């Protein structure tokens, strides 16, 4: 909140906000620091989502170890809090007393009143008790409350309104809400947010933008963005975006950027009255596995996990949106989320190398 006030102040004075430069790389806690269930089989941090709150950055640590059959939860989920300019890390254990209250947290988002919410996917079976949405007070860096997830659902994405916590289902194309006061899941049937598919589709993300809740449905060949009533979940509008969309971000002018991993494009969605219109504005033909998009003014920031890169895109560039800078985070870094600190500086969570790294941009000459 302080930072938003600061930004508004800077904007009002006609200046450009510049964040303190972040440290080049922050190593995240590892092994025994992450309270492994089996000391002989510790996990890696495997950082994912990032959010800002209380002047710090928070990143989810899924705390997994790699096996020949895929990643396995090695311990409870964590949040790591840090200040980008000094790199000091504070760990917040999301797992509770038995370590099983939250496993594999992916997203983390801040509510307007300053709390953090993170959905925990558990082991993706849809039946384990480590699925939850946890609430964290960033002023105290402690878990304040926990909402259990109904059986058969795996939470994905999180949108916090004044009265409700909305999340999507990683197994189906539905979203459902949790009462923010009682932390009980809404007993009414989930809200369908479907999109075209050949075999499988799911809810890639749910986010609050401009007072509405937006839900993103993705499949390997299509994607659909839904605008929902924040109180009832009623569908107000929807529009087709690109294939396999992974993330969305709100711009300061009300538009919404959606990154489509299937065809490596970005769609800009414009809400107008009761409708949404979408347009693909740029193709990142060398960026594979686009995972995240964030906005700072009219600058978009994206990350591509397979190519270990992040892009800085100027939406107002002459001739149309254009990549004006790109950064590489090294072999096997697997950048997963990006967080702009101002309109030129950004940090990424490297899921592969378990670090938070500052983007060292190569710019267009």
């Amino acid at each position, binding site marked *: 909140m302080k930072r938003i006030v600061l930004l508004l102040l800077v904007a009002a004075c006609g200046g450009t906000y510049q964040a303190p430069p972040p440290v080049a790389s922050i190593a995240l806690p590892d092994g025994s620091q992450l309270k492994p269930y089996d000391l002989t089989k510790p996990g890696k941090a495997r950082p994912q989502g990032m959010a800002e709150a209380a002047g710090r950055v928070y990143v989810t640590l899924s705390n997994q170890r790699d096996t020949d059959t895929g990643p396995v939860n090695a311990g409870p989920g964590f949040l790591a809090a840090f200040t980008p300019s000094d790199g000091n890390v504070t760990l917040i254990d999301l797992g509770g007393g038995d370590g099983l209250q939250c496993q594999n947290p992916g997203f983390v988002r801040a509510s307007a009143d300053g709390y953090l919410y993170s959905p925990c996917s558990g082991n993706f079976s849809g039946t384990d008790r480590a699925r939850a949405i946890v609430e964290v007070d960033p002023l105290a860096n402690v878990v304040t409350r926990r909402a259990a997830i109904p059986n058969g659902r795996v939470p994905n994405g999180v949108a916090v309104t004044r009265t409700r916590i909305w999340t999507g289902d990683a197994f189906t194309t539905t979203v459902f809400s949790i009462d923010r006061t009682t932390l009980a899941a809404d007993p009414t049937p989930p809200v369908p947010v479907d999109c075209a598919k050949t075999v499988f589709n799911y809810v890639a993300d749910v986010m609050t933008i401009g007072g509405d809740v937006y839900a993103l449905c993705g499949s390997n060949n299509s994607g659909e963005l839904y605008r929902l009533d924040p109180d009832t979940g009623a569908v107000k509008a929807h529009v087709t975006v690109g294939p396999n969309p992974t993330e969305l971000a709100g711009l300061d002018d009300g538009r919404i950027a959606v990154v489509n991993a299937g065809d490596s494009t970005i769609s800009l969605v414009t809400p107008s009255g009761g409708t949404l219109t979408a347009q693909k504005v740029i193709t990142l*033909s060398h960026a594979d596995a686009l995972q995240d998009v964030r906005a700072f003014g009219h600058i978009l920031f994206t990350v591509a996990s397979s190519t270990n890169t992040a892009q800085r895109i100027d939406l107002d560039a002459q001739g149309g949106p254009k990549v004006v800078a790109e950064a590489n985070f090294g072999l096997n870094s697997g950048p997963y989320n990006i967080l702009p600190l101002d309109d030129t500086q950004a940090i990424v969570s490297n899921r592969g190398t378990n670090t938070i790294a500052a983007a060292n941009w190569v710019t267009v000459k």
Partner: protein
Amino acid sequence: MPPSRVFPRYLLLLAMVAAAAARAQEPGETIEVQGERRQGSPRAPAAAATVVDMAQFGGEVRSVAEMLSTAPGVSIHALGGPGQTATLSLRGATADQSLVLLDGIPLQGPGGGALDLSTLPATILDRMVVSRGVLGAQFGAGALGGVLELLPRSARGSWTGGAEASVGSFGTERLALDAAMPAGNGSALIALQGDRTSGNFEYARQLTPEIAGSPYYGFTRENGDATRGSGLLRISQELSGELGLDLLLQGSAGVRGLPGASSAPTPRSREFDADGVAGVRLRGSSGDATWSVRASGRLDRSELRGVLAFGDCEDGTPDCPRQDQRSSSARAEGELALPAGEANSLRFLLSGGGEWVHGTTGAHRRGLLSAAVRDDVTLAGGFSLHPAVRLDKVGTQNGLSPGITAQWKPAPEHPLSLRAGWGLSYRAPTFTELYLERGGIAANPDLRPERAWSVDAGAEWRLALLTLSATAFWSSYRELILYQLFPPARVKPFNVGKARIAGVELQAVVPLPAHLLATVSYSFLDAVNRADGHKLAYRPPHRLFARLARRGDRLEGYGEASFTSAIPRNAFDTAFVDSQLLLNAGIGVRAAGPLWVDVEAKNLLDKRTYEDLFQYPLPGLSIALIARARL
């Protein structure tokens, strides 16, 4: 400075100029020019086919994949560098959709699917026949893109032998020996080949490729070493005037590093593999009828070490188990060919057996049963027809594969021939597709067979060594097995694809003055996903290969160019592998007696920025020195 820099490019150029000058000093030399001497497969008469004769690559260090890539309609998916995995694509079909036969025995990878061509030793082969089209009627289920027949060296009735040794860039070495001899009432042949490479070449890539003109940085590929030994034994015995027995044993074993893609190297991943094929055939004739009975078997084993679903690991640690996969097959078959009247020649085939897998896919088996009949019909006016039909039962999945080819020649010796073909067939899912549950891959035991049909037509002008051919084809695929997103973070195969692949294949083999032989082949592919109209990924729209070679009894040499146009690498026409132009050249002299010494350079332009379809880096300039002798 890498080893490849030891031989500057201009030295090679100088050598080629010297060779051209030396040519004038060899009056009366006997030139043996070897082009395409055979026309297709006897199992698929009048099918579109190209014969790749290994002899034309004497003095060159070539893998099976490299030699195949000279043929029209063929593209190779190689995971970068010598000794690494390479698979075959015919007419835009996947590697699983083409059959590979060694002397008629089907070969497969350890999961029951595509064969890794890098496990095949090139020097034990005599020639390869690439037959294109849906040829299930002629070869069996699975031949949707076509068939590659590997024909090993034949035993001879007299003592002959040869040896070849080469050393080259990236620590690449090869030693090959073969000997043929009389044995009992027949002959025997033994051939051995050993290959080794350190495989650690330099390459360059942009770290920020979205920025036009951003710099390239140099890297050295690591963990690209490979060592392989292979052998072949063939024995042929005449038991009586009309009865003969043939034995074939072929085996190969190797170990290699799995270096990974350029953006995600895997320095700790290794693969060990071993495979063997055995076949014994009894053949005979009775009157106008000929018959054969054969039993054959195949064993494959592959073990992955230090391999994870995403990345690598330290072999021997608790979460890094070795992944062992074994497959085998055995079958018996009988074939009878007999004339039926003046104009017909009938062939009947009956075969049965089974195939088994054990390992990461679990333990599974399925029966194989086939029955086929083909008629070769000679008609008036130079026409011939070759209808065929085959019933294959693969496990519980049955399918009928009909097909017909036709040919017209104005006269038996006339250089012109016109041909056309049609075929319909299916491919049973592989064991990998049905049962492999590992890492990011889910199994689907409910998969149905893929189905395809194709039609093609072509013309050929063949006069002595001159060959000009053109073929156009159109094929349709349905029930394609595609890996689809499946929660959480996995992919699973489903029968959801449908595609149309059309194309043109051109080839010219032209003898030129000064005992030169020019070969040009061109392939055009238009591969479209019929579900959404986008191009199919990983199919090169244009491939052009040109080669000029000279063979003499004192001097030999070649120069060749291979161009591949930009290739779609996603399903939405928004990302491409850049086009590639490779230039290779070699020159050799007969140094003494039967001893030839050659020097060969590949990728003369030293392009270090090329990558394969899956972003594995490809080597820059490499040079090899080859010595060979044949008695």
